[in-house]
């Protein structure tokens, strides 16, 4: 029967999942942490393990977890390789490794820290294959790879703060930044051609805009969140 088949089994049997099944609201962070599903997933009956599904080697679960966390992994990897292209490659390589070892994943535990361990290893392998930047020594990478709670827990807040700070930029600066990032692979030289301004002027302008953005974000993140 449909309702029986869709009866949720949360590995921790947590009271929050039981509450949502009873129609009560809970915070999405906790639901995700405990059950590997967002509030929307819970509400739609999607994304949770159902009775009869094997908890491990479930491609649906893996795909969902990867989709949900691939951008977090990218944010984690980027400072360790300093280049978006390389970071994307490393996340892809990590995804392959994660899938191969997915039967060792304990769904009781949050996915992201587990995935970061693989990504960290893939970063080191990546640098051994191709060292693009000499300043990224193994020692520095080890230091940078240490968990940083401020970055881990605040991804959503950072996005909101970034959106707020972008709003505060003058329209022309925002437009330039939008164009720079509309295709992150495009070079500043190409952008200069498109907007008809010298490349060195754009380099300086982008540097200034990012500095202002960073200052704005630092200030906003240091302040307690409203609401």
């Amino acid at each position, binding site marked *: 029967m449909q309702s029986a088949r869709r009866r949720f089994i949360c590995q921790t049997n947590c009271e929050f999942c039981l509450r949502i099944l009873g129609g009560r609201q809970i915070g999405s962070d906790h639901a995700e942490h405990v059950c590997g599903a967002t509030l929307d997933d819970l509400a739609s009956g999607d994304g949770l393990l*159902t009775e009869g599904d094997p908890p491990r080697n479930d491609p649906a679960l893996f795909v969902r977890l990867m989709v949900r966390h691939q951008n977090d992994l990218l944010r984690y990897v980027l400072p360790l390789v300093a280049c978006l292209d390389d970071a994307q490659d490393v996340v892809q390589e990590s995804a392959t490794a994660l899938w191969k070892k997915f039967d060792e994943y304990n769904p009781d535990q949050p996915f992201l820290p587990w995935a970061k361990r693989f990504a960290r290893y893939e970063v080191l392998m990546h640098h051994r294959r191709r060292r693009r930047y000499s300043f990224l020594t193994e020692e520095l990478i080890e230091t940078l790879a240490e968990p940083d709670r401020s970055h881990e827990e605040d991804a959503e807040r950072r996005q909101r703060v970034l959106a707020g700070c972008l709003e505060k930029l003058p329209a022309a600066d925002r437009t330039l930044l939008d164009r720079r990032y509309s*295709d992150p692979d495009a070079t500043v030289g190409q952008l200069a051609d498109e907007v008809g301004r010298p490349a060195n002027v754009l380099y300086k302008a982008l540097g200034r805009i990012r500095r202002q953005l960073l200052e704005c974000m630092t200030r906003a993140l240091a302040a307690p969140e409203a609401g």
Partner: protein
Amino acid sequence: METREMDASLRQELTGLLSALVDDCLDAAGEERLGSLLAANAEARELYRDYLTMHADLALRDRAVELPAAALPASPVLASPVRNQSRLARWAVFAVLLLAASGILGWWLGSAQTDLRPVAQVASVVDAQWTADSAPIAEGAWLTPGVLDLQAGQARLVMNCGAELRLMGPVRLELLDSKAVRLQAGQLAVLAPDSAVGFRVLTPTADVVDLGTEFGMSVEADGSTEVHVLQGVVVARPTSSDGVIPILAREAGRFDAMTGGLVAIAWDATPFLSAALATPVPEAVEEPTIPRIADGARIIFLGDRTTDHETHLLMINQALSDLPAEIAPKLWNAGIALPLYFEEDDFERYVLRFRPTHAVLEFGSDISLSRTPRTQKQFESGVTRLVDRLQAENIEPILQTAFPVEHAKPEAQELLDGYNRFLRSLAAERNLRLAEVDKHFRKAPGGPERLVSPNGYGPTFAGHREMADVLLDTLGFTDRQADPSLQLSLLPGVITQWHVRTVPEDQSEPGDITNFDPQDGWKPLAIPQPEAFSERLPDPSHSVSWRDRTRGFATHLPYKKGQRYEAVTHITSDERKTVTINVGAAVQGVWLNGKKIHEGKPWHGWHAGRDRFEATLEAGENTLVIASGNSFFVSITDTLDWALPRPGE
């Protein structure tokens, strides 16, 4: 020494270095300075991490990869905006491929579950006749999973995920869930918007997953399946295999029921376009109408190595092969032979003697990649002079932007961007046709990385197709597209029987050679040379050496440093007559009956018929001798006025 604090000036210096880093312009000194700051200062490392995370956040804005709200457990997909072909967006596509390659696609197979909720709605029907077990189905009806059997007429369904299906009777289709169908027989066109990424069509022989696209599929009685992609990308997997293959726009594949394999076939979207029904025409692209070039135009191509190798010219010819001879344009090649900074003699020899009505200028990429590239000013003056010279002869210049090379040499791209900008402004100023190769390469699936070789020296086969398509549009043949495979044959008049030998490079010139004693090193050589390895490829016409050899070039003759080739052939003529001898590749000199009749210039091109000159054959047997490098092309024609033949000519 490790420090904690950073003062304002150090902070400013660090953000400057980080800006240069993310914009890819950090020099070695900057990198060294950045390393020392990060090694010594914890706050610097924190700032570094903040800055790079912000960089990632900026790049990821509006590109969130999300699960579709209505995803069912049976159809997990990665919904990503794949039409945005930035590397970041493509990444999501590759992630799908990766997951598929990891075996997850296999899990999809057969995982669709029976569900009685509606999964699609009938948007429109035209003269539809349904069989008893699925009839009658009217417009607006909601459909639950099950089999639809449309015997005749047409129907348009919209799946709950947003994918639009156009059925052309007779067709038998099973709705599995809101994101998956099984085509049992007949044909179907799918228009899947981004919201429907991951929509899947199963057939007895194929499993096709859409990645944001428009495609047509047909299933034959034995289960063999064809898929023709109109836009975007699909991932295809023969049901008998674990391997997944992306099929891109304007490509087609056939899943053969007998062999179980997937092979590339000629793309033909016509049957699927006919299923437009009463639906709105999909986004009409507002592009200015380009008038078709005059009937029987004589077009000469001027340019660099890419022009010289003429793959895209062959594709244009093939795309127009069904046009009557008096309508189809005739193509000549003067790639490399006529340099951008030409002498008047060259202009007369390589351009005027063919009496062209149009000239396509394909210069740029090679010049920018040269060790001593031309400055913007030099390029502008070279192109302007050539355009002036052509217009003075009433030859219409057609400009072409250069294909991108930034993945191979970013500094060359900066130059090319300037060249291209100039070409655009010149085209606008003089009202010239402009083939926008640069823009199309950037917009095409896979982008320049797929369409241009890793070293930037030339387009890949797919790149040549893109280039041919752009040129066909520019010439006004907007309804024509290049085929995915080339049909080639021996060029007219190719001399097929030779004796060849190597000699020291500095050996005196050959005279009238009559004796081919193997002890003197002579070996027979028959044209066309076989190309066994290329013939094992799924499509040998994608191989450069196969193309050259099939058309009559001798290539890759065994060769040692300090050697050159002599090649001899005998030509029998019924009468004394004047003919044209055409040479290409590395021919250095030609002797007829002991008399030197041609001396090649140092390297000035590869293409067949690059140099054409008259010669007189005596009645009876004539001896033709050439000196060349380890490749050559020689043919004899009645006239020098022969254009690149179209298939079948």
